[in-house]
């Protein structure tokens, strides 16, 4: 358990002055991708649509967590990952390599707490199959200090609810084991949930009525409303929600059943627009993103679209062809963007 004492101790530790995000060429986003020469990279992207920095990765990345103050990002390997790199986004230097404890692997996402003093990583304790949140003390050079239950099997994305120290954890429900690569081992019994975690305890949990809907990607709005991007594991495709919204102790709202056949029931990423009025769910298998404005869906047709993040009041998207869309601006960069686009919030 991450104890209250642990939290307080980390709060008390004063942060060492370090270079902030301005030194990294003012990136607004970070994203993993593949360069034209076939190598894997982590890039910073600017509001203007350019690449601010480009750092080589040893293998395919998945997502990253941007430190809220320092120009640092933690880049996660694609699951089942045994590495996460802390990268100095101003210089491109790899500051640390994070390795999960024996018997664990990373699931590809992480989040910062407590003004950037704590890093939380989603992990699989693969012999038991139990989901874990790894806790790392940033102020002590990303020292592993604790681990807690994620509240389910297969925790994938974890985000902090804005303005709080509460984590939302997407427990996808799907058991995997490194001996079986990426095979899904428990589709008949899967029970995904969204867990809210505060001070090391699970304080709220949402299960959907259909247990075959994996909860894997989430995004939180400033008021704590979580948007869930759903992935259907039904063998025979059927209409299923693509987005579910949920706020602590409230009712879940399901959206987008009418599109699930063409999107193959698969949402790759989800994000709120910067002004909090819209939710975008990217659907790379349907070559589109669906955008809910509170009353109706609009659609953005684009092959390989998968990354999405807030952009000013609007939304930004990246895709596997190199496309980078910012509000009404569009351009292509010489990197094939992998699953996620992560906003740098400073």
């Amino acid at each position, binding site marked *: 358990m991450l104890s209250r004492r642990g939290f307080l101790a980390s709060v008390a530790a004063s942060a060492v002055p370090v270079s902030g995000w301005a030194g990294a060429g003012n990136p607004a986003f970070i994203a993993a991708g*593949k360069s*034209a020469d076939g190598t894997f990279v982590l890039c910073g992207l600017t509001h203007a649509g350019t690449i601010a920095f480009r750092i080589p990765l040893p293998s395919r990345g*998945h997502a990253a967590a941007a430190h809220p103050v320092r120009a640092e990002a933690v880049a996660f390997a*694609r*699951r089942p990952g045994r590495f996460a790199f802390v990268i100095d986004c101003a210089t491109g230097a790899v500051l640390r390599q994070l390795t999960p404890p024996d018997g664990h692997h990373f699931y*590809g996402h992480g989040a910062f707490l407590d003004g950037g003093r704590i890093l939380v990583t989603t992990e699989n304790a693969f012999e038991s199959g139990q989901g874990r949140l790894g806790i790392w003390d940033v102020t002590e050079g990303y020292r592993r200090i604790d681990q807690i239950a994620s509240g389910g099997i297969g925790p*994938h994305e974890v985000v902090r609810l804005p303005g709080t120290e509460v984590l939302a954890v997407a427990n996808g429900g799907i058991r995997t084991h490194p001996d079986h690569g990426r095979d899904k081992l428990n589709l008949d019994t899967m029970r995904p949930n969204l867990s809210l975690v505060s001070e090391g305890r699970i304080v709220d949990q949402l299960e959907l009525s259909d247990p075959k809907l994996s909860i*894997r990607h989430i995004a939180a709005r400033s008021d704590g409303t979580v948007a869930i991007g759903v*992935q259907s594991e039904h*063998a*025979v*495709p*059927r*209409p299923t929600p693509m987005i579910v919204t949920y706020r602590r102790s409230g009712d879940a709202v399901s959206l987008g059943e009418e599109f699930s*056949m*063409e999107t*193959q029931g*698969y949402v*790759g990423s989800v994000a709120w627009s910067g002004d909090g009025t819209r939710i975008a769910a990217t659907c*790379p*298998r*349907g*070559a589109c993103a669906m955008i809910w404005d509170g009353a109706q869906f609009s659609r*953005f*047709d*684009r*092959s*390989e*679209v*998968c990354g999405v993040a807030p952009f000013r009041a609007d939304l930004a998207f990246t*895709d*596997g*062809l*190199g*496309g980078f*869309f910012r509000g009404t601006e*569009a*351009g*292509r960069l010489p990197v*094939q*963007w*992998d*699953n996620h686009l992560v906003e740098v919030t400073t």
Partner: protein
Amino acid sequence: MRVFKIGALLLLGLTTTAGAGADVDAALDTHVLPGWERFAAATETLAGAECSPDALRPAFADATRAWAAVSHLNIGPAAVEGRARIILFWPEERNATARGLRLLIQQGPDAWTPDLISRASAAARGLAGLERLIWEEDGAPCDLTRALADDLSGMAADIRDGWTEEFADLMRTAGEAGNTRFLAEDEAMATFYTALLTGLEFTAEYRLARPMGTFDAPQPMRAQLYRSELSQEIIVASLRSLRELARVLVEAPRTMASLDRAVALAEALDDAGLQGVADPMGRFRVEALQSAVRDAHMIAAVEIGSLLNVTVGFNSGDGD
């Protein structure tokens, strides 16, 4: 106007980012649009066929061959509403087609309206459901067969119209201002290149690999549409169509030779329902075809990939 002509050609040469000889218009006009038109026409004929095995079976076979020739074009209007997946729901698991049909039959004629059919199990709709009704039940109940054929024909017409009214123009205007679907011409080419490779992969790793199973445990009942003995014809029609696409995409002699070989082996297979996988000699022949299709895939990926110099994404093919 000779000078002007040369100027236009030079300009064309400079703006064709997708490589020499690559031609999106040619692919659309000689391959894609005629293919969807044939499929729409064939399914319309099937929907209008008398409810007798003698009328339904050849019409079903025509529609299936027409489908095989466009089955690699699961893009744009074919992906809308999951149409391509519904048109031939395969591979199926857990006998989903039979279960879906049983439910429709239990529900009776009231459930066979266009609206309710469009919400029925994807596994019961399209060619998969029709094959069972036409080959195992001689088309009975006729109203259900008709309803499923109408539903199929409606999807085919919607795909054709989607291509002719919108999606073909989006591909032709790739790279023009306002076209965010295709930001550059090479993206339209990449779409066809991906379709070619996924089509070959699907035949090698699904249409052939599934019935092959393992040497000790072949799985003839997993062949695609083996009840109507169209498994081989589907493969032949698909490979011929992929060869046609490769021909219009770019001059690629090694790819053409490998596709010629795969087509010849498929045509010579003499195993309509791929049931020969159950004995060693038959399996050997199917395996030889599979190797030829895999070779064609490998050669096309290298040869056409380097000629077109296109980028192929990975987000639509995998998940996390």
